[in-house]
């Protein structure tokens, strides 16, 4: 049994020091790895990332993260990534990693992802350059992420996202903003590569549980949704 702890949308700011609900001893006892599903900071300031990184430094299980839209706001994403890397958190973007847990190889591929909407009500890369850039960004990230997921040399695969890959887990959010909350292209990438679990954040008003059209479990672990320090999902190895 592989135990995966996951949470997103911690939105750490200068007012957050000492408020991290992830107890390093507890998560190290309850889980085999910890996934952070983006929006780790309030406005993407490296100092905010540093505050959270310090509170994660004593976690003794591998930590993987993706950035979220908030983590890009200050245009200092490389420095934000560095703060997490400094304490051993591996930040994924169109990349994957494999860790061995009790002899089982667990692969994680991650991306921030982006919006665009869901089949039947989605944007198309047609017309103005800005529209092509918007949808093109999602296509680019989904393509690299799907490639990384498909090429994990692992016994089980986990997809780590910030934006939502399906609309089931957006239930509770306003329909008008679905195209800004995720894209079917992310779900399609998960289904084409195959995965045992996909986790995401971003949709604070959404619902925890859903499934891709291909049958992969999806969990929205945005902290306002799960209202716990993190959730733990157990997968048979």
């Amino acid at each position, binding site marked *: *049994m592989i*135990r995966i*702890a996951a949470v997103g949308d*911690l*939105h*750490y*700011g200068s*007012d*957050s020091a000492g*408020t991290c*609900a992830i107890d390093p001893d*507890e*998560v190290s006892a*309850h889980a085999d790895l910890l996934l952070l599903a983006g929006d780790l900071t*309030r*406005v993407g300031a490296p100092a905010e990332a540093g505050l959270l990184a310090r509170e994660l430094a004593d976690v003794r299980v591998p930590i993987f993260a993706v950035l979220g839209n*908030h983590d890009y*706001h200050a245009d200092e994403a490389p420095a934000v990534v560095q703060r997490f890397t400094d304490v051993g958190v591996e930040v994924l973007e169109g990349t994957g990693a494999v860790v061995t847990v009790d002899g089982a190889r667990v692969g994680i591929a991650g991306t921030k992802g982006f919006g665009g909407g869901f089949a039947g009500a989605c944007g198309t890369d047609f017309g103005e350059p800005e529209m092509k850039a918007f949808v093109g960004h999602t296509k680019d990230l989904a393509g690299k992420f799907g490639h990384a997921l498909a090429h994990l040399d692992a016994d089980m695969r986990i997809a780590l996202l910030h934006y939502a890959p399906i609309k089931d887990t957006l239930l509770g959010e306003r329909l008008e903003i679905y195209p800004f909350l995720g894209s079917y292209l992310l779900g399609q990438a998960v289904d084409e590569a195959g995965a*045992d*679990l996909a986790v995401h954040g971003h949709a*604070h*008003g959404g619902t925890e549980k859903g499934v891709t059209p291909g049958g992969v*479990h999806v969990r929205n672990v945005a*902290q*306002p949704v*799960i*209202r*716990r*320090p*993190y*959730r*733990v*999902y*157990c*997968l*048979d190895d």
Partner: protein
Amino acid sequence: MTALPDRTDEPTQYVVARVNEVLAHDPRVGELDVQVKVVGQQIFLTGSVSTVPRHELIGRVVEELLPDHQVHNEVVVTTSEGDPETEELA
């Protein structure tokens, strides 16, 4: 000559948009997930934020922006206490 717009008569949906813009771009706040409802001279703020200071700041920023409105700050602070809860996925 075209009259300058009278902000005391600003349509409600533009007031809502203005509040959302300020909450996103005010460097003290940076919040996208606050819902704003305007009823006459009253403003209701709902949604969730991560910390108590941020909750208080949101109310203060909207009061500064629209001093002639009564602000009801009903934004909640996300609770993240309790056991993490485990789910077994088949």
